[in-house]
């Protein structure tokens, strides 16, 4: 079924409203703190909306549904763990509460406060590299979804994606975090309505009994039991738990949300509330993937199955709403990631290389210029690079390149007085090598990811014991 004028009208009204809201916020940017962490004035509910919108994108729907299509209900373990880890962080205040209390703007900034400028620089380079490799595949994945879902030819879609990227770039360059949190709020409402609508229609159209029966026949016990499933298993689960703790405390977009909250207490509560959203964020798209298997059969390319399936269950009007939701998801993720990576390049690579810290005006300008270059890089990278294998594994292993080392630096820095600069360098290098084991040598992602965290921890402990430095935990 083709898109009706009503569908396109809903979409255009939504995009114009978001763009206007984003541009409106430019006048509130006075300094770097306003630009990167919204002046630390974000309240609890707005914080939950912006964190959820940032971490729920079309790319999220694609990789989770791919997991659901491939592993059936057993994949739900990933969603369940992600929510539980987040709720644990919220309830205990693990790392995030202290980090928020230090008034940081980026995670590598902590590395300079605790260790040295060189550690911050190395962390900044690894974060930027791993982050760009991770985000570099977003546009192509989003384009795949939109091509299948709307039926627009691929060439036309490239122009649409470029237009969306330019819109996001414009409002994130001008209004920084203030624009992003406000547009995220609008975008979160759209994307969550779309998520709930698709999930209800999925069960209604395919039928719960048929979905379960399909998994029994095609996947057997491995479709339900994550421990016996050869794609998952204990090594994968332990790596995922480590990666989730690292990701929710040190992933730049998530950490910047915690740093933007009004107080330490609110930064904790942000995680508890978001934990419930994160369970649904994973499990509902996985359900779409499982239902796509039931509706389309096992012959479809896993990553293409969900958009092809969702297209068949939506009527006119609902399609426009869902498309607006998906565009919302795309825009909220991309704009936040643009700001995060450009913030890291500006604050943690360019600024430490300068002898004197420039004025606030120059710092904001540097952030904006970095944002433009990051946008251009992401556009070119997404055109020329296609990841091999599962998207979920690729994204996690690319992120692990910096997450394993950065997590070790922050965790040991906060909780172990003997953590030293030598240990921090060894942790960052060890973590990156573990991740490269998969990207370069082709070692299975779960083993490489597990190795990355082990090497980072070993590097930190051995390096700190062999070359101690004076000073204690901050």
């Amino acid at each position, binding site marked *: 079924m083709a898109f009706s004028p009503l569908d396109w009208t809903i979409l255009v009204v939504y995009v114009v409203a978001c763009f206007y809201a984003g541009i409106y916020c430019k006048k509130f940017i006075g300094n770097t703190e306003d630009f990167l962490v919204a002046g630390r004035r974000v309240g609890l*509910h707005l914080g939950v909306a912006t964190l959820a919108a940032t971490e729920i994108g079309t790319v999220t729907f694609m990789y989770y549904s791919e997991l659901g299509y491939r592993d059936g209900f057993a994949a739900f373990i990933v969603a369940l763990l992600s929510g539980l880890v987040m709720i644990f962080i919220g309830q205990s205040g693990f790392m995030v509460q202290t980090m928020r209390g230090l008034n940081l703007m980026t995670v590598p900034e902590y590395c300079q406060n605790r260790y040295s400028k060189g550690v911050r620089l190395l962390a900044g380079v690894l974060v930027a590299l791993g982050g760009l490799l991770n985000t570099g595949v977003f546009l192509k994945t989003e384009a795949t979804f939109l091509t299948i879902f709307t039926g627009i030819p691929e060439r036309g879609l490239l122009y649409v994606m470029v237009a969306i990227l330019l819109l996001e770039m414009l409002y994130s360059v001008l209004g920084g975090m203030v624009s992003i949190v406000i547009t995220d709020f609008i975008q979160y409402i759209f994307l969550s309505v779309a998520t709930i609508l698709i999930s209800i229609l999925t069960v209604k159209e395919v039928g719960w009994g048929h979905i379960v029966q399909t998994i029994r026949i095609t996947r057997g016990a491995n479709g339900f039991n994550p421990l016996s499933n050869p794609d998952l298993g204990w090594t994968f689960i332990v790596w995922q738990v480590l990666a989730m703790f690292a990701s929710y405390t040190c992933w730049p977009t998530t950490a910047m949300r915690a740093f933007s909250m009004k107080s330490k207490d609110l930064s904790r509560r942000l995680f508890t509330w978001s934990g419930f959203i994160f369970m649904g964020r994973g*499990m509902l798209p996985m359900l779409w993937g499982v239902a796509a298997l039931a509706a389309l059969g096992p012959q479809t390319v896993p990553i293409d199955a969900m958009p092809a399936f969702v297209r068949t269950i939506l009527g006119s009007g609902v399609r426009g709403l869902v498309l607006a939701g998906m565009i919302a998801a795309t825009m909220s993720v991309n704009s936040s990631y643009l700001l995060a990576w450009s913030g890291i390049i500006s604050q943690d690579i360019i600024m430490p290389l300068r002898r004197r810290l420039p004025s606030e005006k120059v710092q904001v300008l540097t952030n904006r210029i970095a944002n433009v270059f990051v946008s251009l890089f992401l556009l070119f990278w997404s055109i020329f690079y296609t990841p091999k294998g599962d998207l979920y594994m690729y994204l996690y292993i690319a992120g692990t390149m910096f997450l394993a080392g950065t997590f070790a630096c922050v965790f040991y820095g906060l909780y172990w007085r003997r953590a030293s600069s030598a240990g921090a360098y060894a942790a960052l290098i060890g973590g990156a090598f573990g991740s490269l084991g998969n990207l370069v040598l082709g070692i299975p992602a779960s083993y490489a990811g597990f190795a990355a965290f082990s090497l980072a921890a070993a590097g930190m402990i051995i390096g700190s014991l062999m070359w101690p430095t004076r000073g204690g935990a901050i």
Partner: protein
Amino acid sequence: MISTWELFWTVCLIFCGGAFAVVTIIVAYAGISDVVDLIRGLKLERDSSIDH
């Protein structure tokens, strides 16, 4: 026959889907006042910096 895992994931899906919807409704309702507070705070800060 329904296995333990089937039952477990069914209950999880209902709980997690329901929690997603409920938290979304609360956030959408209460978030509006947070947006107003954020803009008001930034506006006050901007006006006071202009005055100085």
